[in-house]
């Protein structure tokens, strides 16, 4: 019955449309594997406790704190990190709205908001607030970030 008696295993992860292999400890978080095994350092370690959102990645398009998912759990799922998101409208909106200060929280915010826009292109203020609650910006640039989201949603509607 028991087949896997080891504390680690060789896994394949689908990250940013590439298949990557690594030998991981079962107790390695995805955040650790992304940064230390694959050099994908866009996911930032902040609280390491699922509270701050700076390590957010997308798992099958859903924002997940990568410090709160084991690498072995992510097998079979499609992972998107900030390195896999190139030239999205929300990235441009962050620049245009001065929504970046020190930048440490930015990758997490970008991925979370990208998922929001993909999932709910008609998101209202309440929904935007609900999604943005997941991330903390210690530079407190919250207003500019929210404006970037709203402007992106408006621009998207105009271009439709």
């Amino acid at each position, binding site marked *: 019955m028991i087949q896997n008696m080891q504390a680690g295993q060789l896994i394949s992860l689908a990250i940013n449309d590439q298949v990557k292999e690594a030998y991981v400890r079962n107790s390695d978080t995805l955040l650790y594997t992304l940064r230390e095994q694959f050099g994908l350092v866009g996911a930032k370690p902040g609280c*390491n406790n699922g509270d701050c959102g700076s390590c957010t990645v997308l798992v099958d398009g859903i924002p*997940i704190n990568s410090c709160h998912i084991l690498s072995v759990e992510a097998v079979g799922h499609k992972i998107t990190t900030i390195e896999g998101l190139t030239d999205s409208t929300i990235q441009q909106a962050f620049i245009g709205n001065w929504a970046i200060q020190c930048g440490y929280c930015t990758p997490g915010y970008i991925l979370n908001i990208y998922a929001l826009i993909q999932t709910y292109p008609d998101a209202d203020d309440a929904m935007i607030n609900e*999604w943005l609650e997941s991330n903390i910006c210690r530079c407190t640039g919250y207003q500019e970030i929210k404006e970037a989201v709203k402007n992106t949603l408006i621009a998207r509607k105009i271009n439709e």
Partner: protein
Amino acid sequence: MIPIDFEYYRPSTIIKAVQLYQDLTGNQKQTIFYGGGTEIISRARMNEISPNAVIDLKNIPECNVLKKDTETITIGATVSLTQIADSAVFPLLTNVARSIAFRTARNKITIGGNLTGDIIYREALLPFLLTESEAVIAGREGTRQVVISGNGIKLNEGEFIVQLVTNNKFAQYRHINHKTTKQSKVNYPIVSIASILVDDQIRVAFSGVCAYPFRLNQIEEALNDVTNSPGKRIQAAIDLLPAPILHDAQASSEYREFVLKQALQQLLDNFEGVS
């Protein structure tokens, strides 16, 4: 980084999960069931727990069910709080789920994890306490179905929750939930109340007030005793609390009692139009 090593298993059936637990514990390995894993990862990282093996339940089809049919609402244990919050199958639970943590965390936290974790609040339990819901529990003896009452679901060694089953009729009743936190909207509750009006009788369940979530018939009788004034009914309810009011860094017991009175007053106002 988690400083311990453990074995990781992801069985695809209930039987395999139960058998794995028996085999692993039979080999003297401390084993835990794993749903969303947020609490397990945090606690393992802080060296508060050190399992030798975890059994991830997310590949078990029965644990992933979220459906409503003509008779029942069925929610699998590994369904995330976001899935529930975005679903209309059980409106009171939807509202309560939406008040727990924040969205990205809810994407990972499962209903089963919230109901059985070590964090004392277990707010998602409240709607199930109010609706005579049942938990389908798997273990060495097979599966059993128990009514969720009192202060929660008691699991025996080696058991895990497979599903929560609620009578569909409860989705129709008027309901209110209230949550007060210390400061920001996202936090553990100072007082969290869920209530539902069934046959003109208020049912109410509490989290954050005492050291565990609960529903108590005597408290509901006191609140529904319309021969008394609202103030007396509320005081009678507070006098019947089953354990001391929590007194911690979140709030003093005095402040919690004050918030509880306000919350109960709002509840009566809403259900009865009492001012």
